């Protein structure tokens, strides 16, 4: 089992900086997911760990040993490719055993290892088949078996489920999780699918434009995003963002937003900012509740999405995107209704003009959320 460490790793391609000062530690046995929008450098980072791409500056250490100048097979890593890249002319047995054969493993232990791998992946009955005779999920398992056969310390996955249809994707996701639990191998997994990231990861690394935006457990990232980017990237429907203005800087901030009015005693430290600074208030759809408003009060409902288990209500807040509120499926909202918003205080996020989350404070005990709310809606 090995620990992997990236130390100020940089990657440049054709004058373009693909990765910038990436520093990261991955403990042995951890399941780490790299996630980010396309072009953020997540695949490059994975290929760089694999040894398929070069590191322009910085160090890559596995178990404390610098491996920048080692070939993939010397690094003890295995990789599962997006297209599976199975050898089409070889049987499943040969696909899994190819790496072992090249490593000059003797015939008997090669056979044992291949059979053992096939057993773990439930490929026992398919060993003589060619890849083209397999289903998508089976091919996926063969690709994993090939990566696992040489018992690498670290397994790399490059968007492995993106070629499968939705139901199979869920099934294979669970299988990978089960595999990780039983093998205990360090796994690094690249995806752009936030559900895969949330469900699989011990630790998520969010990348944006070649930089690490945030590293943390799924819960940390979801509940305490350090930036507007992370906050907006995870969660579906995504977090609502409302323009706001800082009224009074302090340990606990008071702000005003056009949509929600004034909010006081928010648990964010804004002492570094001046009064009047532009801010962004973030709030997830599930942290908003609605009440019917009478007459012209409150906000107008401009859309209702009924999903069976719940309903998303869209509210007009005078900006490009409507505010989305997650309600119970039983709630009966109609286009044109007026609604009063009740945000949940613990679910509020406050970002400065650069998109960084303001330092979070313990909730101000003195202030009563309900009173603050009343003040807000006044």
């Amino acid at each position, binding site marked *: 089992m090995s620990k992997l460490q990236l130390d100020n790793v940089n990657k440049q391609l054709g004058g373009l900086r693909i990765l910038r000062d990436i520093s990261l530690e991955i403990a042995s046995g951890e399941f780490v997911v790299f996630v980010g929008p396309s072009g953020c450098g997540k695949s490059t980072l994975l290929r760089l760990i694999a040894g398929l791409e070069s590191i322009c500056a910085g160090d890559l250490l596995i178990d404390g040993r610098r491996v920048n100048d080692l070939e993939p097979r010397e690094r003890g890593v295995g990789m599962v490719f997006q297209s599976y890249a199975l050898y089409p002319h070889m049987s499943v047995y040969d696909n899994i055993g190819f790496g072992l054969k*090249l490593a000059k493993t003797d015939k008997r232990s090669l056979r044992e290892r291949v059979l053992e791998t096939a057993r773990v992946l439930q490929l026992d009955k398919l060993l003589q088949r060619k890849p083209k005779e397999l289903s998508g999920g089976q091919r996926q398992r063969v690709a994993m078996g090939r990566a696992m056969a040489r018992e690498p310390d670290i397994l790399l996955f490059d968007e492995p489920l993106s070629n499968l249809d939705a139901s199979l994707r869920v099934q294979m996701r669970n299988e990978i999780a089960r595999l990780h639990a039983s093998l205990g191998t360090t796994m690094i997994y690249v995806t752009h699918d936030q559900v895969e990231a949330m469900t699989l990861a011990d630790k998520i690394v969010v990348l944006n434009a070649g930089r690490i935006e945030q590293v943390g457990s799924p819960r940390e990232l979801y509940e305490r995003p350090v930036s507007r980017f992370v906050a907006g990237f995870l969660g579906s429907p995504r977090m609502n963002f409302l323009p706001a203005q800082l009224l009074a800087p302090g340990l606990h901030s008071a702000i005003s937003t056009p949509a929600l009015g004034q909010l006081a005693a928010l648990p964010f430290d804004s002492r570094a900012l001046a009064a009047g600074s532009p801010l962004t208030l973030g709030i997830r759809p599930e942290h908003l509740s609605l009440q019917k408003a009478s007459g012209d009060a409150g906000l107008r409902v401009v859309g209702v999405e009924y999903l069976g288990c719940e309903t998303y209500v869209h509210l007009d807040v005078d900006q490009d995107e409507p505010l989305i509120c997650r309600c119970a499926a039983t709630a009966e909202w109609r286009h044109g209704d007026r609604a009063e918003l009740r945000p949940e205080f613990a679910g509020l996020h406050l970002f400065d003009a650069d998109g960084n989350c303001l330092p979070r404070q313990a909730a101000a005990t003195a202030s009563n959320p309900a009173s603050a709310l009343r003040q807000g809606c006044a």
Partner: protein
Amino acid sequence: MSLRLLKKTLLRLGFCVAIGILLLYAVFPFYYAVLTSLKPSSALFQVSYWLDKPDFSNYTAVLQQASFLQAIGNSVFVAICVVALALFLSLTAAYALGRVKFRGRGTVLLLVLGVSMFPQVAVLSGLFEVIRALGLYNSAWALILSYTIFTLPFTVWVLTTFIGQLPGELEEAAIMDGASPWVALTRVLLPLLWPALVTTGLLAFIAAWNEFLFALTFTLTDQERTVPVAIALISGGSQHELPWGLLMAASVIVTVPLVLLVLVFQRRIVSGLTTGALKG
């Protein structure tokens, strides 16, 4: 009958006639050669479009000539060796050019393209000297060596295109499995390249089988001649006394294998010809 239907019928008729003319144009000369070869020498000088009774005397006469059989043997040997040599040399080269990014790749490709374009006669005297220096004059090896000048650029070009189309992750998977470039080429990519190799090999074979200028210049004796030269040198006493029946029989014998190859591998040949030209 409506006017539209009439127009449609006429159009279809015109199309069928056009296809008929095309087929006649393409096939008639060869048909006529077969026809001539099956006539006894007495009937040779009466033009006819049909044959009542085939007469194989021309074929028996040609096949009894030791020099002609020798020429066929030489042609087969030369063409097979050229194909083997060109495929081996171009397979490794195509891997380098099609799969590896390195400085100088564009220059090498341009060089190969350049060689395929220049006239063979331009190297004739220099090549003559090289062949004499190597002691290969008037031997099949002189032809095998010199034929690479036109087969190699072509096979390199086509194989580079084919090998470049194979998915990149396949080779990366092999690298992750610990394969060296040689192993990746021979154990992973080569098995997928068989169709391309068949195509290019076929085209190289046809080119080598048909070559004339070098064969005429670098061989001297009947023992070493290839088929095109042998046919070109079949002669009678004067222009008007050419043994046409014999000549056509020999022509048909050397052409039939090619025609069969073309008919069988038509699809592959077309794809080889067009990838070489259009994707380059």
